[in-house]
């Protein structure tokens, strides 16, 4: 009898995936009869590999574990053709360890921790190489965003979640400027989070919650935050609408979600404008090759509307060499060149001739930035929408 189901189950027949989400802490095995029945029905109908998705199962006790384990053990014993893959998430900490004994004990059951290699640019972005890029970028965009954020609904004392926080500079800056009542900063890179914690400690900031997690499957309750930010990140996912759906979900009704994105092909500079433009057109193609969309910026409004937001506000600003120290701008471009014309270009299999020309555009952009008569720009789209109340 499950009068108060704290969990939900779904079965997707097309990919033979049975998902359990929520909390499974029954007192007796009989309390989760409906789940047992659904699981056993699903198992009976599949061929080949059956997937048990527990990525969003936040809690399980041994009563429930034993019900699931014994049912699956019986099934694979009866049906030699059947294989089961349990898909866990590293985000919860306990889940892989909890399910692993199944695989150790029962042939034909495998346990796979899903968040290894699950978004296209992961290997580029989670390696240390991106850290210098992010540092410089945030320092430069902050000059603009600090003034824009109130227009997008951020007020002092609001509760903020910064999803895909990277190395956390934005969180520290927002903390200082807006004194939020709560600030959670989440990313899927442990390297970045370690770095973020160090930066916060250096600034003596102790009340930012740095959290490891997956933006596509946030372990955060519905309607939790007044202001949800996700900066420069929808553009790294092949299915940004899934992330946006999560941002919407954790935002309070009446609260706002704020995103920033680029359109890299519109980076510009003078002198040597043509070479610069050529290179950034190639950057866009390179990202597309790895299923990421660095041209996302102007599409923000459409995505936000499709996700159900209203009162959508969009701003565009140009970060330029004239904003502050031109060397900051130049450093950022150098960091881009290192990653884009380095590992990414190599991995795509580009020829040395191409790479040389590709690099030249970045060098020309740096030249434009440092040239006292030059101009170098990087356009950003900042968009926000309100979750209807």
């Amino acid at each position: 009898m499950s009068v108060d189901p704290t969990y939900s189950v779904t079965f997707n027949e097309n990919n033979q995936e049975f998902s359990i989400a929520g909390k499974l802490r029954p007192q007796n095995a009989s309390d989760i009869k409906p789940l047992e029945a659904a699981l056993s029905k699903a198992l009976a109908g599949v061929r080949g590999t059956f997937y048990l998705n527990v990525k969003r199962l936040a809690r399980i006790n041994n009563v429930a574990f034993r019900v699931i384990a014994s049912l699956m053990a019986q099934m694979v014993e009866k049906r030699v053709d059947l294989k089961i893959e349990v898909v866990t998430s590293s985000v919860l900490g306990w889940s892989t360890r909890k399910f692993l004994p199944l695989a150790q004990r029962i042939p034909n059951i495998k346990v796979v921790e899903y968040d290894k290699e699950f978004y296209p640019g992961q290997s580029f972005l989670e390696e240390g190489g991106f850290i210098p890029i992010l540092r410089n970028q945030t320092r430069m965009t902050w000059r603009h965003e600090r003034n824009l954020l109130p227009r997008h609904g951020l007020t002092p004392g609001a509760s903020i979640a910064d999803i895909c926080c990277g190395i956390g500079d934005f969180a520290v800056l927002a903390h200082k400027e807006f004194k939020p009542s709560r600030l959670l900063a989440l990313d899927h890179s442990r390297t970045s989070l370690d770095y973020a914690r160090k930066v916060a400690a250096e600034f003596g900031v102790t009340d930012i919650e740095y959290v490891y997690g997956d933006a596509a499957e946030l372990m955060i309750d519905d309607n939790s935050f007044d202001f949800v930010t996700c900066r420069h990140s929808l553009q790294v996912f092949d299915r940004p609408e899934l992330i946006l759906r999560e941002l919407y979900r954790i935002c309070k009704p009446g609260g706002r979600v704020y995103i920033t994105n680029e359109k890299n092909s519109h980076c510009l500079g003078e002198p040597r404008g043509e070479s610069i433009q050529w290179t950034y057109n190639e950057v866009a193609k390179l990202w597309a090759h790895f299923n990421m969309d660095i041209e996302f910026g102007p599409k923000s409004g459409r995505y936000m509307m499709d996700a159900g937001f209203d009162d959508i506000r969009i701003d565009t600003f140009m970060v330029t060499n004239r904003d502050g120290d031109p060397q900051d701008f130049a450093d950022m471009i150098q960091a881009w060149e290192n990653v884009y014309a380095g590992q990414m270009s190599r991995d795509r299999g580009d020829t040395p001739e191409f790479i040389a020309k590709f690099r030249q555009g970045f060098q020309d952009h740096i030249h434009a930035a440092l040239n006292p008569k030059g101009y170098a720009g990087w356009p950003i789209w900042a968009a926000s929408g309100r979750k209807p109340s």
Partner: protein
Amino acid sequence: MSGMKPLLEVSMGIDAFSSAWAHCDRISSYVARMVSHNRADPLLYANLLSSALNELLEIAFAHHGPDGDISCRVSRSGASDIIELSLPCDDAALGFYTGAAEQLKRADLAEAYQSALFSPGAGDPHLGLLEIAVDYKARISILPEGGKRVLVAATVELEGAVS
């Protein structure tokens, strides 16, 4: 007990506690959340602590004596957290905890845990404790307090417990 800082203590009558199963989940979630906020990754830490604590509370729910309070205290000493459950015991409950203490001395704890996980039928009543000892690498002590109560203490180091 030098270097140990009590962080939080929750206590309630054992009757009230054992009147609803949901208390295990609620107390473990609440306590875990409260003591995790200043760990490096609060959500991850709370997830782990809640799982371990919930098993302990479920054990207390099933095995306790009739009168008195159950209290749950968490103290901290550096990277370690010490979870202490103190609860009233009658003879049956005392027998259970004495048996559990014996189990936990086994050299083959990991195997004992595995076989308890998959044992047929109603299952091994010590499963939860075995899990905490093996999976959470907890040091567990079970001490009778004056014949009428028992103190179950589990020391865990959960920070960096995941790869």
